């Protein structure tokens, strides 16, 4: 285990406004006010893990900052988290530090990529993560503050500061907070972590380097095939990095669309195969330079009837079920082939929780 130095501490005598101003002036926030990370509050978070406070969970680019358990706890307090969220955040940062996620590029790129944490297993219910209505939106403390904690770690430890270490051309509101639980209860299929071979009662976090959710509305199709054609049409669009360089995109089906698709005999694997075959953009509709790029660099057949895929194979698409009632789904275009989904099991204290 590599260990990092203890976090610096300092004394304040003033009121909350003075403390917050101190953090704002130094750029130690995402723009929102912070919860002061007092020693007592940080200790309450550290009590939620068996890991050593000085253990380095990951070295985060571009600053190559050492994300110790303690520094992550400090940022989680600042974000407004409750202590019981802490194991999710630790596992999330560990997933982002996995070389396959390629945080170097995710942090610095001009692309509006944000790390989405998808939480599976019993911890999601225990800490009250929203998987239903408006799950990608506002309203639930766990989703918003876990997402914000991750962003504060990427800024304050990793140095992903807009205009210097983070060069996103426009950015995205998804970069403020982006954490969701899969709606396992309303999914007709096995959840994401079970699909990967883990037991249902294990809790996991899966990180995707992706855009904000791109809505897919279909109120008119009564069949799974009909819904899937709409989904494929939305995913096979020209502007995504997945059309540019393929990669590992995410489909977040609403429970009603998922139910219709599953009722008509589609397993998750069949959904992925359908999307590999149909979520494509006609080469003939690309401009001359982009068409030449697809032919010369991505080796697609140079013909007007060529349909350009967004993935190299069906299994590169991930499918989850998220949301409440209604005929809406979403897909998350990812940072092309510049990032891969990564997953970590959420370690629970042996004295608490029901998962282990």
């Amino acid at each position: 285990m590599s260990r990092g130095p203890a976090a610096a501490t300092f004394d304040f005598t003033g009121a909350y406004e003075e403390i917050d101003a101190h953090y704002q002036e130094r750029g130690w926030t995402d723009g929102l006010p912070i919860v002061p990370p007092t020693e007592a509050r940080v200790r309450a978070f550290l009590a939620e893990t068996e890991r050593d406070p000085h253990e380095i969970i990951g070295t985060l680019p571009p600053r190559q900052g050492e994300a110790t358990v303690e520094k992550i706890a400090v940022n989680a307090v600042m974000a407004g988290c409750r202590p019981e969220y802490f194991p999710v955040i630790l596992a999330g940062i560990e997933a982002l530090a996995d070389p396959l996620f390629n945080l170097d590029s995710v942090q610095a790129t001009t692309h509006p990529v944000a790390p989405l944490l998808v939480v599976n297993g019993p911890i999601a219910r225990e800490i009250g993560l929203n998987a239903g209505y408006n799950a990608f939106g506002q309203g639930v403390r766990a989703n918003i503050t876990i997402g914000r904690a991750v962003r504060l770690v990427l800024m304050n430890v990793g140095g992903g500061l807009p205009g210097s270490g983070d060069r996103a051309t426009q950015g995205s509101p998804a970069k403020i907070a982006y954490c969701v639980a899969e709606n396992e209860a309303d999914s007709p299929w096995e959840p994401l972590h079970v699909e990967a071979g883990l037991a249902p009662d294990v809790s996991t976090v899966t990180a995707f380097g992706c855009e904000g959710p791109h809505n897919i509305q279909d109120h008119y199709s009564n069949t799974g095939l009909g819904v899937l054609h709409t989904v494929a049409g939305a995913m096979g669009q020209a502007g995504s990095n997945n059309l540019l360089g393929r990669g590992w995109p995410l489909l977040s089906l609403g429970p009603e669309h998922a139910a219709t698709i599953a009722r008509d005999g589609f397993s998750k694997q069949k959904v992925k195969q359908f999307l590999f075959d149909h979520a494509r953009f006609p080469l003939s509709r690309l401009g001359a330079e982009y068409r030449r790029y697809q032919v010369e660099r991505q080796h697609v057949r140079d013909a007007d009837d060529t349909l350009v895929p967004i993935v190299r194979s069906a299994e590169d698409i991930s499918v989850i079920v998220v949301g409440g009632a209604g005929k809406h789904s979403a897909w998350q275009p990812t940072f092309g082939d510049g990032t891969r989904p990564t997953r970590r099991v959420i370690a629970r204290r042996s004295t608490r929780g029901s998962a282990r």
Partner: protein
Amino acid sequence: MLEQRGVPTATMGTFEFEALARLEAKNRGIEDLPLALVPHPLGGIHEDEVLRKADLAIESVLKALTRA
């Protein structure tokens, strides 16, 4: 990294991202990484502009690759 193995390199980019490149090089312990920089942007330009920028960069590329 190639430089640390003694292989001369010239990392190309634009002045727009010079500060980011130097920051990342410094944080990885290769502060003197040779950069060959041209005016921004590199994308969305016509071939004559590409050639003009290549002319601007050639000196710094040669210097980076042939330095003692």
